[in-house]
């Protein structure tokens, strides 16, 4: 499975979205399921999936799916 698909699945699982829900355009708090509590679950799910530890500044800055892709790049995960 590609890194992109793994990230999409992490979003869907952590935010309790349907398996086929589009997530590439998601933005923090635009979707009712992506609130501050869900955000911590989402970060944990991404960390688990890619075996990384994300710094607090990046946790706070992870405001969209695109931003998650960019941040993961900082930790050596090339999401394509």
């Amino acid at each position, binding site marked *: 499975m590609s890194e992109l698909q793994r990230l999409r699945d992490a979003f869907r699982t952590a935010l309790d979205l349907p398996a086929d829900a589009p997530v590439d355009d998601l933005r923090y708090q635009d979707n009712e399921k992506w609130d501050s509590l869900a955000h911590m679950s989402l970060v944990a799910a991404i960390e688990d999936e890619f075996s990384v530890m*994300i710094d*607090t500044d990046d946790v706070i800055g992870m405001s969209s799916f695109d931003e998650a892709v960019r941040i993961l790049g900082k930790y050596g995960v090339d999401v394509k």
Partner: protein
Amino acid sequence: MSVALVTGASRGIGRATAHRLAEQGYDLVLHGHGGAGAAEAAESLAAKFGVTAVSAAGDIADPGTSKALVRLAFETFKRLDVLVINAGTHAAGMLGMTDDATIERLFAVNAAGAAYTLQNAVRLLARAPQASVVLTASITGTHGVAGQAVYAASKAAVVGLTRSAAKELGPRGVRVNAVAPGFIATDMLDTLDEAGRAERVAGTALGRLGTAEDVADVIAFLVSDQARFVTGQVIGVDGGLTL
């Protein structure tokens, strides 16, 4: 194997706590302000109890220190079950005789340092099946002591952090408690004069100073499964000083 991170583990309460946890089979990540004490503790406890122990040094007032500690736990063990936030500094002095630098340092280490450590560790902790945090507060922070107002205020911040974090992290399966030591025979007590020490001992129901092991045993209980329904509590370990 469960993993515990202990800050301020070079000596005193932190060192005694690391010893108790190693005795119980925990792998360890130990922190000290200077490198030598924590590194020596890690080496000694690993040899004595057959656990894996690693260490790192740094000023806990710098958020980068706790960030590096959690990263060390992640890279070495991939997990964290127990966090003991013990690193602290002490300074006594009448309110009107306490300079700006002392006030800033007390809050930077005792209050901000504790918050940084908990903040940086919480996501890794939340992945553990039964995670537990214990912070070292102080009876000064719960009851107040003349001549230690600023230190007491910095430890009162630890109490607030403990209770709020317990509420916030409980739903994620993380228990958060604190110990509030009374007068413990550690290096920190050196800042009190002899008359002050004698006065404190005289006010203690059990008639003695506490030991680091007295506190470590309570911390070991709080992180254990025996305390599985205990969270948000500040447990006095003071020999009856606050009665």
